[in-house]
């Protein structure tokens, strides 16, 4: 039924419109309770659904956070194990290198000490002999002078003086020898001091390593216990590693792009300049493949050297096999680098040829002029062609860091996203309740006239009931007083 036919129910469209509106309002009024229930049911259902979804997302976020934490701690533990292992290897090296010669040192020290002891014994000062002359002189002095005691005493005196001077000479000689022995002890002392200093240094180095190991073990312990501090440190470290490795990888990508430019043009000479695979030139793809193969060889080389650990299979190989793999990958890299250097040279030759042809076609006539410094650019290109493959080998290190940190970063991003989604769903779920109330109010808006009438009627009824209630109350308190008005009412009727 069209609007025109609806407006034609009376001869006057305005009246028809008013009638229709009135009918609509009446219909809406009578359907009000049901409509309100329907609105409430829909909004409540939506709200509950959204809140349920929010809870589900929150649970998912918690699970993801737990998983992320687990992965982070696992990666941290693995990294820490590697560090501790390396520290132990260093300690082992130090002990093997420095303390392996400890028996030799000990022997040298003992020999030095024995020599010192011997020298010291030799250098002991011999006490002067007890003067045997004194008693004899006393006896002779008591003799009578006539018996020639004076002469004897003089002789004794002379002998004593002579003996004294001889004893003094001997004493000086012995002292000199002792001093010489003590002087001889000096190098031994110095040697002992140096040896002990060296031992001290080695022991200190081992102690430092032990302290570092202690620190790492403490951190490892925190990780094993799954402490929040350890997770926080690992998380922030992962973010830093991610950005740093991304930066280094972008630099490596720029290097690879330069490498690509160096070899793409001459590759056209090898695989043709006009064949395509998909939308890409075969020469470009071939150049890209060469660079990718170089990067792969670099990865394998780094794995064989155990600098990176992206492929557990390579790390698990025996040392002999690893060394073979190392040699093979290095030889392949060397060959690739040599090929690239050749291609870079070819590029320069082709460029010159193309320039000469262009000049001829333009009619410049400058084909014969040759740049005498051209060899510099040629050599530079060849050098870059040779060096870049080896430089790209080191991409493996940031790549490993990037791959490991990417897991954490993606996890953090996913957690953030899920948290925001959960919040949004919760807000929407709560908002649905208010939306329901708003929808009811909007429904009631065109029904303001019947609602006003309804409220007036309800108010009148309420006041009437209140009056009746008050009258009943009065009647119960004073029944006689109520008779008069009743008689008056009967008379009136």
């Amino acid at each position, binding site marked *: 039924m069209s609007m025109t036919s609806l407006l034609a129910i009376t001869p006057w469209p305005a009246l028809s419109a008013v009638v229709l509106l009135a009918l609509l309002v009446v219909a809406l009024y009578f359907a009000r309770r049901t409509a309100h229930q329907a609105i409430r049911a829909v909004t409540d259902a939506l709200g509950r659904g959204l809140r349920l979804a929010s809870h589900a997302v929150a649970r998912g976020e918690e699970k993801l956070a737990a998983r992320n934490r687990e992965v982070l701690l696992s990666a941290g533990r693995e990294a820490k194990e590697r560090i501790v292992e390396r520290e132990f290897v260093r300690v082992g090296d130090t002990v093997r290198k420095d303390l392996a010669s400890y028996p030799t040192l000990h022997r040298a020290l003992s020999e030095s000490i024995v020599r010192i002891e011997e020298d010291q014994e030799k250098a002991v000062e011999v006490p002067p002999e007890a003067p045997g002359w004194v008693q004899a002189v006393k006896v002779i002095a008591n003799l009578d002078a006539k018996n020639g005691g004076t002469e004897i005493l003089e002789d004794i005196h002379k002998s004593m003086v002579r003996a004294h001077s001889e004893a003094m000479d001997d004493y000086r000689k012995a002292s000199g020898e002792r001093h010489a022995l003590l002087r001889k002890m000096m190098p031994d002392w110095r040697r002992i001091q140096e040896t002990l200093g060296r031992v001290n240094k080695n022991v200190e180095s081992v102690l430092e390593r032990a302290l570092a190991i202690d620190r790492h073990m403490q951190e490892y312990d925190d990780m094993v216990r799954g402490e929040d501090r350890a997770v926080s440190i690992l998380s922030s470290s992962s973010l830093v590693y991610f950005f740093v490795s991304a930066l280094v990888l972008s630099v490596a990508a720029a290097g690879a792009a330069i490498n690509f430019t160096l070899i793409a*043009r001459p590759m*056209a*000479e090898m695989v*043709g*300049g*006009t*064949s*395509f*695979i*998909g*939308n890409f030139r075969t020469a470009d793809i071939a150049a890209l493949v060469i660079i990718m193969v170089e990067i792969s060889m670099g990865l394998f080389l780094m794995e064989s050297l155990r600098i990176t650990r992206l492929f557990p299979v390579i790390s698990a190989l025996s040392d002999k096999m690893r060394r073979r793999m190392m040699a093979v990958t290095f030889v392949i890299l060397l060959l690739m680098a040599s090929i690239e250097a050749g291609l870079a040279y070819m590029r320069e*030759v*082709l460029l010159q*040829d*193309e320039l*000469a*042809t*262009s000049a*001829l*076609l*333009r*009619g410049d006539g400058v084909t014969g002029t040759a740049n005498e410094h051209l060899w510099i650019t040629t050599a530079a290109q060849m050098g870059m062609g040779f060096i870049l493959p080896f430089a790209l080998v080191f991409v493996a290190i940031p790549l490993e860091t990037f791959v490991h940190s990417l897991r954490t970063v993606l996890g953090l991003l996913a957690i953030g996203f899920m948290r925001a989604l959960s919040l949004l769903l919760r807000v929407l779920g709560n908002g649905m309740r208010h939306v329901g109330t708003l929808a009811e109010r909007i429904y009631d808006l065109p029904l303001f006239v019947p609602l006003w009438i309804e409220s007036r009627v309800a108010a009148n009824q309420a006041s009437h009931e209140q009056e009746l209630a008050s009258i009943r109350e009065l009647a119960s308190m004073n029944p006689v007083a109520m008779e008069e008005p009743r008689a008056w009412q009967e008379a009136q009727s």
Partner: protein
Amino acid sequence: MSRPTRYRSVAAGLVLLLGACGGQVHMPRNTGLYLLIDTSGTYNRQVTKAEQIILVALSRLQPSDSFAVARIDTASFTEKNIIAKATFDDRPSTANQQKRAFASRVEKFIDESAPAPYTDITGGLLQAIEFLKEKNPGRKEILIFSDMKEDLAKGYVRDIPLDLKGFDVVALNVTKLRTDNFDPREYMSRLDSWKSKVEKGGGHWRVINDIDRLDGLLQ
């Protein structure tokens, strides 16, 4: 997903991928260019300008492209009229050598060009169509360096529909004749008739008169 089903899906994906790649691999991407040079009457003096166009074309053509230069004279529907032709090698260095050789052959022709009494443009166009169809490049372009005034000798039938589907036909340096100056409608009707002839054959028609601005050529 069970294992055989998974393998089948992977195989189907690979086949589709290869099919998509293969379809594009076999589609030719090279260009075929055929230049007709009018050597009739007074227009023969313009031939030196054609050399400039040839050199520009040579500098823009890539390996695997085909290029032929032929003259328009009394009877143009013949291979004898082809002055130089080449399909450039896939390798850029060899293609450069071919371009140099091509340029020297064209130079020799320009020096020795003699005027022809009649102008058989349609015959030249038919020869160009035949040449380019045989080469089957991805893009076919015919350049006509002429005043576009056809003047056939007695006995030559050229009222033949041209099959120019997928061809670009470019008229270069269409000079005005003395009679065109008296009545420019002649010039315009001449160009219109060629345009309708080319478009009726399914080709795309273009005119470039300023040969110092050949930026739009081969692009």
